């Protein structure tokens, strides 16, 4: 290949489209066939194909074998004078330097980094990251000072230099007792919480990144740096997984898997640090030090409670250092601290603390000796809230509910309470499980019975279950031990079942499985059918925790059959809930719904209040777009929470109900409900709760065209964000500002705000929410006429979801795309999308879905030239909008109708739309962007008419 014309020809060919290119080649072939061949060969590797010179030779496996020489340290880098080298961290050389300006001199840590990327886009991203990091100001975080390219061409980051000992060193040297170690971590969490509230995730938290100064206050290093470096590396080596910069000992499962990192990943790393602080070892230290071993352990196994680890290492659980024990420990129990630590270390991010603030708050509760969320767990504060908080998708976090196999929050009715007290006496042939494992009789009762008859294994098991439920694990273990002394105990399945329960509570799932299996087999062999349902359900829950989903499902089906056969409705209720969750997690919605409905029936028959079932079913109905079916469920829940005195749960459900009511075209009722929700949630300690309600209020205000109501809500969201250090209210605030800007026609501002909102919400790990919020952004782009941008944002929104099918965001993304396709003239594609949404879409009980569908279909009809049908659909949509007080939608639809008229002429016998009236109305409401479009349409049709 050596013809000098080749480069120029190649360049020219790239700029041509396919037919012109072929022509060029053909012409060339006539004169110089060899050149044509070469050109063709080159063109078979277009710029999009990777080339060997895209990477860098300086990566890879260069061993330090070059000639030895004294360390080379540069004298200066830009305005920084190098003092000495500090060391080589995981990300490059670090120097101690002095920055000298006219006013001052300060000491900094200077890190040399790779150039951000080959193009301007990468540099722009780098600078944006730098700006965000530089804005972090907190006494617990080492200041990020500067970053960029020095005059010598070196890329660097400058950070405040912090001296001291790292976290573990400090704890060791000062021989800190457990309480003070926890307090130290709380201080760290404070700083991390601040950063999380600004949407900055650290991504590489580890003890060496926490410096404790002589004042005993910790300071965090390298906040957010990992991300800056990652984007520099991303353009080079994707396949070279070794290079992924993480510290295996502290990395979260999702980091190992290369998945998106969020605030919850930081929570995990902090969990590892807590574990190490209080037990002296890391959670998976026994697996080995190699990255591969750690990775496998992190992804597949559960750590033992830190107190157990400490004990095993020969340390007393409350004194990892054998140092002075703080007798003044008024803190909570060891079990509390264990639970907090393990919650932070859950493999599923959805089951951990949302962010550092939540983690810190629970630790504070532990220090104060008050009840800790990690133990009362999702249930007491509303396990169903786990689903509720993930709008539009059924979260895997519902596995929470399966954990102990004890699903029902059994708020006993009086009938049920009696049954519990009676049930311990073994009947001649008990028809059902002798007591309710999820709400066993009080410990004293069982103890009394045992005092009278120590060989009463049923009472013994009831005692164990109760003690386990109350967190009195040691006593539970002792009770099991006592049972094992009773002659003949090995033939009683309840004993194995009870011991399995204790193992489960201690987090030892494999052991629990062994016991449950033995219990089941014995029950089968000895003909104890009344025990099978419960034992199988617990066994299934454990199998699920161990990842054996198929086996879990099979066991649940068997359990169901067992309970149905003997008519044990109470146990059946638990089993059906478990089944429902399994099916839902697999995406088998209809099956899941059937199970939940059946569970409701079983609950009714056995006198249980099926709160979790109601929550789950309501969430499913929302996802299915059936607010009509969700409404009665929500009302039952509100009723229950009112009676139970749980205002925050009531508030959340009220908010959801309000949105349902709106979606059913009952706006006044919705507003009342929403107002109530806000009032209830304002007092909630969780900043995110009231944020949801406020955002709903703002959205309603926008829809109704009352734009002036939005500003105070945004202000309250911002205030909430500052007060509670939560990212969600701030994210919502930005999103609302984005919508305001879009309505005013300021697309540039809108984009900035939407992007910031997305960043914050994603940093919190809320992908479903982010996707839904992004759709508003896409709509704004489409309205402004930038279809390419709209499609891009839609694609990004969908990419945030694991599986868009069946989600809210998925549905609305499709309708938007169908509309955009139709407007671009791609009618077959639009039609395909509409068809895929299903026949029910046009008559969906959900007004929003129907509206979206009708608008998309109208666009398709207009594109096909079928004006009559298009008009009919738009008029139908307009009626819906008016009925539901959706002012903005109403204006938009009227504009579409006006455009239709302009194109096809006025409808026979119908009143013409006045674009100038429309403009005036839009302006009056504040919808300036629409007013402009109306004006443009008016002008265009006037000039068309005058021709």
């Amino acid at each position: 290949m050596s013809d000098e014309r080749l480069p120029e020809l190649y360049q020219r060919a790239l700029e041509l489209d396919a037919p012109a290119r072929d022509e060029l080649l053909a012409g060339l072939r006539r004169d110089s066939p060899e050149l044509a061949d070469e050109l063709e060969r080159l063109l078979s590797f277009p710029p999009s194909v990777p080339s060997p010179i895209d990477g860098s030779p300086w990566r890879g496996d260069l061993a330090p074998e070059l000639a030895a020489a004294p360390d080379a340290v540069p004298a200066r880098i830009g305005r920084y004078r190098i003092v000495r080298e500090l060391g080589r961290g995981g990300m490059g050389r670090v120097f101690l330097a002095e920055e000298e300006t006219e006013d001052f001199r300060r000491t900094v840590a200077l890190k040399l980094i790779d150039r951000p990327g080959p193009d301007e886009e990468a540099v722009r991203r780098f600078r944006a990251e730098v700006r965000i990091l530089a804005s972090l100001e907190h006494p617990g975080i080492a200041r990020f000072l500067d970053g960029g390219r020095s005059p010598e061409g070196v890329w660097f980051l400058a950070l405040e230099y912090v001296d001291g000992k790292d976290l573990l060193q400090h704890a060791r040297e000062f021989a800190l007792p457990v309480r003070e170690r926890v307090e130290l971590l709380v201080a760290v969490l404070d700083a991390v919480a601040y950063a999380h509230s600004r949407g900055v995730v650290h991504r590489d938290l580890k003890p060496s990144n926490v410096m404790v100064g002589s004042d005993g206050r910790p300071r965090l290093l390298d906040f957010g740096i990992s991300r800056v470096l990652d984007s520099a590396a991303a353009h080079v080596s994707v396949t070279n997984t070794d290079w992924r910069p993480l510290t295996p000992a502290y990395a979260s499962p999702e980091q190992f898997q290369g998945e998106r990192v969020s605030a919850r990943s930081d929570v995990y790393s902090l969990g590892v640090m807590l574990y190490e602080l209080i037990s002296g070892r890391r959670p998976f230290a026994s697996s080995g030090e190699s990255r591969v071993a750690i990775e496998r352990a992190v992804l597949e196994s559960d750590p033992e409670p830190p107190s157990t680890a400490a004990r095993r290492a020969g340390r007393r659980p409350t004194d990892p250092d054998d140092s002075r024990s703080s007798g003044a420990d008024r803190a909570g129990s060891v079990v509390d601290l264990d639970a907090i630590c393990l919650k932070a270390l859950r493999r599923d991010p959805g089951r951990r603390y949302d962010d550092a603030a939540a983690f810190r708050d629970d630790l504070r509760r532990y220090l104060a000796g008050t009840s800790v969320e990690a133990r009362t767990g999702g249930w007491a504060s509303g396990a169903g809230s786990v689903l509720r908080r993930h709008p539009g998708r059924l979260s895997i976090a519902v596995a929470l509910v399966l954990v102990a196999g004890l699903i029902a929050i059994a708020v006993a009715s009086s009938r049920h309470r009696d049954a519990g007290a009676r049930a311990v006496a073994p009947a001649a042939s008990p028809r059902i499980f002798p007591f309710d494992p999820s709400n066993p009789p009080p410990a004293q009762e069982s103890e009394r019975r045992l005092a009278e008859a120590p060989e009463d294994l049923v009472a013994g098991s009831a005692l164990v279950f109760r003690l386990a439920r109350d967190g009195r694990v040691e006593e539970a273990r002792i009770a099991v031990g006592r049972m094992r002394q009773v002659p003949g105990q090995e033939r009683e399945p309840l004993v194995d079942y009870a011991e399995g329960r204790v193992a489960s509570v201690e987090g030892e799932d494999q052991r629990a499985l062994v016991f449950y299996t033995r219990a089941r087999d014995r029950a089968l062999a000895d003909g104890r059918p009344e025990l099978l349902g419960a034992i199988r359900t617990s066994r299934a829950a454990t199998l699920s925790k161990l990842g054996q989903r198929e086996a879990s499902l099979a066991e649940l089906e068997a359990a169901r059959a067992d309970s149905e056969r003997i008519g044990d409705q109470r146990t059946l209720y638990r089993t059906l809930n478990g089944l429902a969750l399994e099916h839902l997690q697999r995406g088998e919605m209809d099956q899941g719904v059937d199970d939940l409905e059946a569970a409701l029936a079983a609950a009714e028959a056995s006198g249980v209040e099926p709160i979790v079932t109601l929550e789950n079913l309501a969430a499913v109905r929302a996802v299915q777009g059936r607010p009509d079916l969700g409404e009665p469920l929500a009302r039952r829940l509100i009723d229950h929470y009112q009676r139970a005195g749980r205002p925050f749960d009531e508030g959340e459900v009220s908010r959801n109900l309000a949105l349902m009511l709106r979606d059913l075209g009952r706006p006044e009722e919705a507003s009342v409900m929403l107002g109530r929700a806000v009032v209830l949630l304002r007092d909630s300690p969780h900043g995110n709760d009231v944020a949801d309600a406020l955002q709903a209020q703002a959205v309603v205000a926008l829809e109704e065209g009352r734009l002036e109501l939005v500003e105070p809500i945004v202000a309250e969201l911002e205030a909430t964000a500052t007060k509670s250090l939560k990212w969600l209210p701030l994210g919502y605030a930005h999103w609302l500002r984005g919508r305001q800007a879009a309505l005013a026609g300021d697309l540039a501002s809108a984009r900035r705000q939407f992007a910031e909102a997305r960043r914050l919400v994603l940093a919190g790990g809320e992908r479903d929410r982010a996707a839904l919020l992004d759709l508003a952004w896409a709509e704004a782009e489409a309205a402004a006429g930038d279809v390419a941008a709209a499609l891009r944002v839609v694609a990004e929104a969908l990419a945030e979801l694991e599986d868009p099918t069946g989600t809210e965001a998925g549905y609305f993304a499709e309708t938007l795309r169908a509309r955009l396709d139709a407007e671009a003239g791609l009618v077959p594609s639009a039609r395909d999308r509409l068809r895929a949404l299903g026949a029910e879409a046009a008559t969906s009980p959900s007004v929003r879905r129907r509206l979206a569908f009708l608008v998309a279909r109208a666009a398709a009809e207009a594109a096909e030239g079928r004006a009559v049908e298009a008009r009919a659909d738009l008029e139908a949509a307009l009626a819906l909008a008016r009925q539901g007080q959706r002012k903005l939608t109403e204006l938009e639809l009227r504009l579409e109708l006006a455009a239709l008229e302009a194109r096809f002429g006025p409808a026979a016998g119908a009143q013409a739309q006045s674009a100038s009236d429309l403009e005036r109305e839009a302006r009056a409401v504040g919808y300036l962007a629409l007013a402009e479009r109306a004006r443009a349409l008016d002008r265009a049709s006037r000039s068309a008419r005058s021709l």
Partner: protein
Amino acid sequence: MPPSPSAAAGVTQLLHAWRGGDGRAGEALLEKVYATLRRIASSQLRGERPGHTLQPTALVHEAYLRLLGQQAIDWRDRAHFFGLAAVTMRRVLVDHARARNARKRRRDEAAEPLTLATQGGPGVELLDLDRALTDFARSYPRQAKVVEMRYFAELELEEIAVCLDVSPTTVKRDWTFARAWLRAALAERP
């Protein structure tokens, strides 16, 4: 660490002479730069974990500082220096790869060639790339220089443009062409 004024002046003279067309000055310069770069690179490499990156531009600038200090020199000379540094960096890497292969062969281990990190494409050996680049330079010398300066020294578009005395657009086009050419050339190998 900065050079003595006379040493620095000496290097400047060599640079200047080389730019003026003095071949021997160029060679002398090359040797100096080569030695300096090897020293710097080795100290940077020592102690780093495998898979860790060096700072090619930093190397270049460090070498520059070592040889020329704070001397104010003609910006064209400076650009030329960078071009030279790129050449030497290539040499440093190639030497290293060869020595490594030889060592492995002597130890009768499976010779692990220095595989370059590539973006999703097949792993390419440094020595193969070097050979292909030499071929490339025979027919398209300027484009090959662009590759050298960008790939081995990670110099910026503008710097390369100044050094080669062409427009940045030309540099971009050269790079695009080179990417395709080298990809095509190296696809033939197994």
